[in-house]
């Protein structure tokens, strides 16, 4: 039977109170943002905390806003809020589409974007996309507010740059300029993504103006950026350029054998999904 150990539950009503609690409790307290990952880990006894700080009741941490050429997503915004946000659909449609396919509806209704990033489960969808979109994580702590690119925030499996006295307060995503598109393609052999590839690039016709951002998620412990320079100025139908990037993606990843597939297979899939993502961004009708 899965049971939780006893803990104290703190429910600060403001960000300021939440930060005070963080500073006071340090590593004895876990941030409870949606619970979809944390509660599972607590139930299985993988993690144990004396204190849980529920940040969902801090109004500062919720909502999606357009701020100076960026979309600012409060850390406690749920996947479902993102999936249905008209603002996101307009400004970051690829992220909205990704959110529609995160886990299942119950997880989307409870789980939050900040929780997702801070938990740093490697087999997750948003980190790769946010990396490709050059998103930044906003962190608040006793020393004030700082921002880190998502790729510098996620350090490894369940490991981030978040300090014990800090909170993720928002994810800030630059709105891509006109002509720049993004897409995310994934393949899941079990419950979670086995391979997910995010691409952002400026496309005219079937040609990439510059090298697209290509990020492989869910394979390694953290999202990895693929060198896509061969596609700079090249058409997606330029087989050599395309295969060079696919090959680079395959070479980049360092998968492990597990229940979702062998390392060989995942490396192969990384190539396939990378190719399909690149084709998809040019031709949204291509097979996924």
């Amino acid at each position, binding site marked *: *039977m*899965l*049971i939780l*150990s006893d803990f104290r539950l703190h429910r600060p009503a403001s960000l300021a109170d939440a930060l005070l609690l963080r500073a006071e409790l340090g590593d004895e307290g876990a941030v409870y943002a949606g619970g979809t990952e944390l509660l599972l880990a607590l139930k299985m006894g993988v993690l144990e905390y004396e204190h849980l700080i529920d940040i969902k009741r801090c109004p500062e941490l919720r909502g999606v806003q357009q701020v100076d050429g960026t979309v600012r997503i409060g850390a406690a915004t749920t996947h479902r809020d993102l999936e249905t946000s008209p603002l996101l659909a307009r400004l970051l449609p690829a992220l909205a589409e990704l959110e529609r396919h995160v886990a299942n509806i119950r997880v989307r209704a409870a789980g939050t974007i900040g929780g997702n990033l801070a938990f740093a489960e490697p087999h997750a969808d948003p980190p790769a996309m946010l990396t490709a979109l050059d998103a930044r994580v906003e962190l608040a702590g006793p020393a004030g507010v700082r921002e880190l690119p998502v790729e510098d925030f996620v350090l490894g499996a369940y490991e981030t740059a978040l300090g014990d006295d800090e909170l993720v307060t928002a994810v800030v995503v630059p709105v891509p300029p006109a002509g720049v598109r993004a897409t995310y393609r994934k*393949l899941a*052999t*079990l*419950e979670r993504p086995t391979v997910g590839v995010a691409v952002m690039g400026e496309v005219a016709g079937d040609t990439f103006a510059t090298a697209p951002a290509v990020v492989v998620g869910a394979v390694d412990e953290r999202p990895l950026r693929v060198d896509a320079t061969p596609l700079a100025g090249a058409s997606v139908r330029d087989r050599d350029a395309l295969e060079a990037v696919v090959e680079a993606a395959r070479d980049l990843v360092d998968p492990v054998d597990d*229940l979702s*597939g*062998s390392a060989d*297979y995942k490396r*192969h*899939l990384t190539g*396939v999904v990378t190719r399909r993502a690149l084709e998809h961004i040019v031709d949204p009708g291509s*097979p996924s």
Partner: protein
Amino acid sequence: MPDELKVVGHSVPRVDGPAKVTGRAPYALDLTVPGMVHGIAVRSERAHARIVSIDVEAAEAAPEVLAVVTAASVAPLDVRFGHVARDHPALACDRVMYHGEPVALVVARTPRAAARAARLVRVHYDELDAVIDAETALQDDAPLLHPDRVAPLGDAGLDAGAADLTGNLCAESTVGWGDVDTAMAAADLVVEGEYRYPMLYGYAMEPYNAIASFEEGTLVVHSTAQHPYMVREDLARMFGLPLARVRVVVPYVGGGYGTKSYTKVEPLAALGAWVTGHPVRVALSVEEAMLTTRSDGAHIRARSGFAADGTLLAREFDVVMDSGAYTDNSPVVCAKLANRCFGPYRVPAVRVRVRSVFTNTVPASSLRGFGAPQGALAGELQMDEAAQRLSIDPVDLRLRNVVAPGEEILPRKRGIDADLAEDLRMLTGSLGWGGPSAPGTGIGFGLTASDAGAHPTSVAMVRLHADGSASAAVGATELGQGSRTVLSQIVAECLGLPFDRVAILAADTGATPYERTTGASRTTTLVGRSLQAACADVRRRVREVAAEVAGVDASAVVDLPAGVSVGGERWDYAEVLSRWFGAGGELVGVGEVRRAGEFQAMPPFWEVGASGVVVDVDAETGVVSVLQLTTVGDVGIAINPVLVHGQDLGAATMGLGAALSEALVYDGEALANPNVVDYRVPRSSDVPDRLELLLVERRDGIGPFGAKGSGEGALNPIGSAVAAAVGRAIGVFPHELPLTPERVWRLAQERVGDVRT
């Protein structure tokens, strides 16, 4: 539908529907008993070890804990159970035999207190060599898992194989006739191969649970048991009680599919109650359920010899089943696999050996299909491989060999009560076989025949009440298959009552009469027949008393719907009862089915399967999508067509799970995926867009109104059909399930453009 039938043959709504859509239907898990406390098992962290000591003091001292029960603490009770061989201890005695086996039961006032205290129990082990793989367990130098073999109970109703069992053999079954070697030597083509069917977890969504209490000397158990009478026997033996003093009650059950056959957690709850004097609930998590029962995995070596025209000359199967730590039901599965693997074909020479092998893994027992899906994977795929190599259409190849109605498949068994050739034509017609096919797609199909019905012992009781309504008491359990609905229809039809004037009592060994099991599709057929007999009996009583009241000869009283005619005058049931009793009263009829007369020949009926799929394979990723599913439900008569459709689609979907994603995986000595996150069952998106659930009603079964079974047949050929379809899509026939994307991708890589053997 012939119009003489008023209720049978119609899709009346399920009687349990309203209770289930409102969430009010009680399952064992929803019941509470005053004073109830909770038991949680401490489970082995070794696959094979001697128990040196169990340190329970800290747990016993923990808050709200009432007792920590171990096999030693309940001595002299013998905690072993089993319906074939009594070798399965409810709590490990001196040895643990698999990772996850219950070693102690912590009983506390709340589940949480029990779970927390369970973490405080320390078991000291002296590790022994473990064997996880069945082939290894068969080797001479393998550790011997059951050095002190427990003699089988010899239950005559079980087809449990025989032979002298040595080493780690749990059971062995052989079937054979003809001269296989000569026939193979003379064959124009011998197809030979090895096939692997995974071990599966049935995932009935309600995990095993039970509440046990001792009330005035009677052990009362509410549980998820599919076969409460079998559980009663185990408990009676364990506690030295007469059958009359063990009452097993089964409310609604959240899925069975065979996984809840036989005894599971009932002894644990009963031992807890025996020690503490309180009613004890033991409710397993899904993870624990996965550590309780699984199905037998099978490694099959098969050879089939054909003449150039496609005529089957001989078949040979050598099967090793991985049966886990204890005997449980594996010998029966072993015998069934032996009977089912060579298919519904006319084969002049057959040699089958199936060995069920003990390993240090979760014990295997029943699961829907019962050896048939395992056997069909080899048997049916070899038909497809032969067809390809002989350049014969696989439909024609099967038609050439399939048995005709009435023809024997197994010597001295009942001849086949189905027209499989016709079923196959319907099936392949629906699948568009022979037509054009899109690149990357493939069609696969198969036939199976299962000796179903199990041992035909069934007793039923019908009570006709003073207002003319009727209730029936049968020991069959409602697992979702709709038995209460179908059995109500049968009673309503026989007594001429409207459907809503009939009720069926939930299985309760203290109140409902004996029912051997609920499985092998025997409820509609055999329970239906005993109910028909009970209805006839109560009708006879009605005529008898009406005649006596009217002072006429019984022959002057004639049955009418819901009443009788007495010398031309209609008396409805209520009137007969009121004239007979004056006030109140009821008439009781009893019916039996036993292995005699028309039920002498085994099996009571054949459950045939004819199912197929169209798949699309993404060869680059290996992802298989099922585009179409067709099942042919050759059920004799569909007493409730909508319910039969539900059984067929549900069963086939379970088959798709085994074909494409389900497999229990061992990583070293422990299960690597004991949860439904990593053990993937079919989801809504896996439902094929095109579904054709065909029904064939030839009224050729032994059940009521010509019914046969349903609920397994649609599943049995699915694994082989999916493998064949994928094989046709990628150019090489897979021999191992499940066809995970990676496995398909690898096969597509290996593709040699020819049949791999």
